[in-house]
């Protein structure tokens, strides 16, 4: 062997890292350290400041879990579609908005028909069903218009079409339903709070959290146990091979969009129950949060969507109090979106496979 081969033997780990690294790696490392320092300093300051009591933190946590479960439901749609098409459904957030409005009108109709008063417990599933149906239908339309025609070409076309669909949904809804905020009708029994182990929690939050878990469990059962679920996993694994063994790929894709849309519809109704008011423009940025949750958990991974949603919800709920408070910023809650979007950007850069990273298609990422 030549001189050089021997002379280059066994450098230290650090020297080896140094040799392989480019200036990009140094900058990324600097960003990592910077962000970590920001968070740690803020955390220390926030804990030291002691503005909030333990009870405050508990209620923040509960709120975080609630909004997190809604993020998780939205994230499911992104994750399922991504798993199968390796594409992001940009209009998914607006599907949620449509579901929310469908729920509103269903609730209004039930109220007029007296069902809401007579059978308050029955009304909630009906309203959820309306939201799911509307979400599924819109989602199917999106698939038909923005994705199916471009299934076999790798290009920007689906992304641009989906952005276009998002605008169509938002502004058509604006024209149809008006620009003002719409108040969701109360379901008598949902007013008030429950006390549990010394905690006081608003009922809608509990309902939203539990409903989200039930729906998620149902979805997991579908994917794990049914023929459709098996076909979906096959198509996600290899679309062409699935087609060759006789799976109707188009139908599976449509079903995926429909289920994702139904989940978004549920999210829309639950969101409205918790926040009481909805607008036609609420979907887009909630959609971005849902996407962040999907990425955070590991896109393509259903359990990851739940985890990502809850982590993101908690971070947004606790972050301002824990971290931003440490910098003595005025009105730290205005900046909760900065935490959410910041997590999105950071996770995309540093761990695009997410917390429970399933195989990430590096080519597409």
């Amino acid at each position, binding site marked *: 062997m030549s001189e050089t081969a021997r002379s280059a033997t066994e450098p230290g780990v650090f020297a080896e890292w140094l040799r392989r690294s480019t200036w990009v790696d140094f900058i990324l490392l600097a960003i990592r350290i910077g962000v970590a320092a920001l968070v740690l300093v803020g955390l220390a300051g926030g804990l030291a400041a002691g503005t909030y009591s333990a009870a405050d933190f508990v209620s923040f946590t509960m709120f975080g879990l609630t909004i997190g479960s809604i993020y998780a439901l939205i994230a499911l749609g992104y994750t399922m579609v991504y798993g199968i098409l390796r594409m992001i459904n940009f209009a998914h957030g607006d599907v949620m908005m449509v579901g929310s409005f469908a729920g509103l009108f269903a609730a209004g109709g039930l109220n007029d028909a007296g069902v809401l008063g007579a059978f308050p417990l029955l009304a909630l599933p009906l309203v959820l069903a309306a939201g799911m149906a509307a979400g599924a239908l819109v989602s199917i339309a999106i698939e038909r218009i923005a994705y199916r025609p471009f299934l076999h070409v790798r290009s920007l076309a689906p992304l641009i*079409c989906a952005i276009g669909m998002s*605008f*169509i949904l938002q502004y058509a809804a604006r024209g149809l339903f008006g620009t003002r905020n719409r108040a969701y009708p109360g379901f008598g029994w949902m007013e008030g709070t429950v006390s549990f182990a010394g905690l006081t929690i608003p009922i809608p939050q509990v309902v939203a959290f539990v409903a989200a878990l039930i729906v998620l469990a149902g979805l997991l059962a579908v994917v794990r146990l049914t023929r459709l679920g098996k076909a979906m996993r096959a198509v996600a694994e290899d679309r*062409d091979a699935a087609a060759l063994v006789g799976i109707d790929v188009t139908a599976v894709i449509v079903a995926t969009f429909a289920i994702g849309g139904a989940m978004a519809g549920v999210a829309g109704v639950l969101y409205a129950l918790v926040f009481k008011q909805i607008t036609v423009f609420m979907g887009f940025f909630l959609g971005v949060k849902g996407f962040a949750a999907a990425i955070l958990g590991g896109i393509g991974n259903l359990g990851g969507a739940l985890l990502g949603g809850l982590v993101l919800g908690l971070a947004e709920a606790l972050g301002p109090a824990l971290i931003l408070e440490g910098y003595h910023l005025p009105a730290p809650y*205005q900046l909760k979106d900065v935490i959410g979007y910041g997590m999105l950007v950071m996770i995309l850069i540093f761990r695009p496979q997410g917390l429970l990273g399933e195989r990430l298609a590096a080519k597409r990422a």
Partner: protein
Amino acid sequence: MSFNTVTSSFKVTRRRRSPLMEAVRLGLIAGAALVAFALIGAYSAMDKRAVIEGTVTLSQLASLLIVFAAGHVAARDARSGTSAALLNAVVAGLVAGACLSVLVWLIMAVNLRTTLVAASPALAKALSLGARIASLEALAQLPLIGAASALVGALVGRLPAGAGKAALTGLAAVITAGLFRDVFASMLERLPDLTGPDHEVFGSAGLNPGAAVALFFLAAAFALVRDRLALKRGGVPRSGLSRPGLVLLIAGVVLLPLVTNDFVAQVAMLVALYMLMGMGLNIELGLAGLVDLGFVAFFAVGAYTVALLCSSGPLAIADVSFWVALPVAIVLAAVAGMIFGLPVLRVRGDYLAMATLGLGEIIRVLVLSDALSPYLGGSQGIIEIDHPRLFGWELKSPVALYYLALVLAGVVAFVSLRLQNAKIGRAWLAMREDEDVAQALGIDPVASKLLAYTIGAAFAGAAGAVFAALIGSVYPHSFQLLVSINVLAILVIGGLGSLPGVLVGAIVLIGLPELLREFGEFRYLFYGIALVAMMHVRAEGLWPAAYAKEGVHAS
């Protein structure tokens, strides 16, 4: 590796319907479009604008065109003889009109307004076209009008090619003149009055009927003559724009504000600003293939820099001339671009879209927050920005600022062209085509992407600087995600990677909706439809770049 051919061969072939069923289906589609048009409130809004004075309003025209198109398609798709084709068209028109009749009846019979805000009696009244609201007469006339319009659409399709095209040209001319009455009327005001006061071309709201008829025949005759001449020269009659077309377009852009009023100049100014931004994003997206939905942040950096440096308000940190602030704004925007670019360099495609979107929103939320409002004014913004001065002359009028933006746009176009034909431009294109291969040829992908971000951001910063000087104040509200989407849409509609495409896209998407004020509320809906339609019909854009003849599909 892929089995595309295998999967695509599984495509289900379209079921054959009988011609009549096909006509009914088309009619229903057109009817759904009409109902949607009415229910989103567009009908009522556009009913206020007349295209032909006292005869046809904009919303009526749009409805007629929808049915016209349906009739045209119904007749074209019919394989049998002319009479069967015309029958199909009539059926489609009848069905479409009937859909509207049902809507009118429903509005009056059921209260839909709690759900659908536009379903008001006023809408029913407008759709009853002067007859008693929802009377039998009112309901019956809609299908008949629909049938007539569809029949005309079918007949135009059945005319000999030259005559059909001439008819469409005439129609287009009338519609254009009617829609842009304000622009043309203001131009005519400056010309000597040739027709005399009794024969004005324009009424107070649209074309006068006599003028409309004359214009139709003039334009149709022009189209006929042009085709004949082209045939005589041995060429094929061609549509679309060409090099002389580009020269004309540029001449129009340069001279337009001089011959119209301040309102048009202001619109032209906006178009020029969006051109600046469009050329910036063109570097990122059109050349380097980097989707950027946070683009508006660079625009904001440029605007806020000028605001802070040139304002005489309380938040100003200096009170310098615009000409000092402009380069500072450009440099700061470029630096912002570089910082923005750094973290997102590791992500591609759809992920990049989301990452940049997140970054752009972070900036907007920060500017709006109380935390930064002592420095940037929060939602109150920064006001009292001085106008630029040139040789002691204050650039204050829209026309003056328009020319300022235009000069900047010219410089930016020049720089874009130079870069496009240099090593870095080729590197961008290569990366867009195949990043791995480009890297294997020694192109540093990170450095080239960063440069694309930096230059694109610098262009947007220049646009922001002029914007601040134009408006005289900056608010976070002006820097929403919508601006990024607007710029993206301009590129997509005009043609990715194409500089003339940016010009065309900015005129179509920014200029036209601004001039059609009634349209304003619905412009984003229109954008959405335009983006989707463009991807389906003409993915390469209105004025595609030479190397992207197959457009985004090929990349």
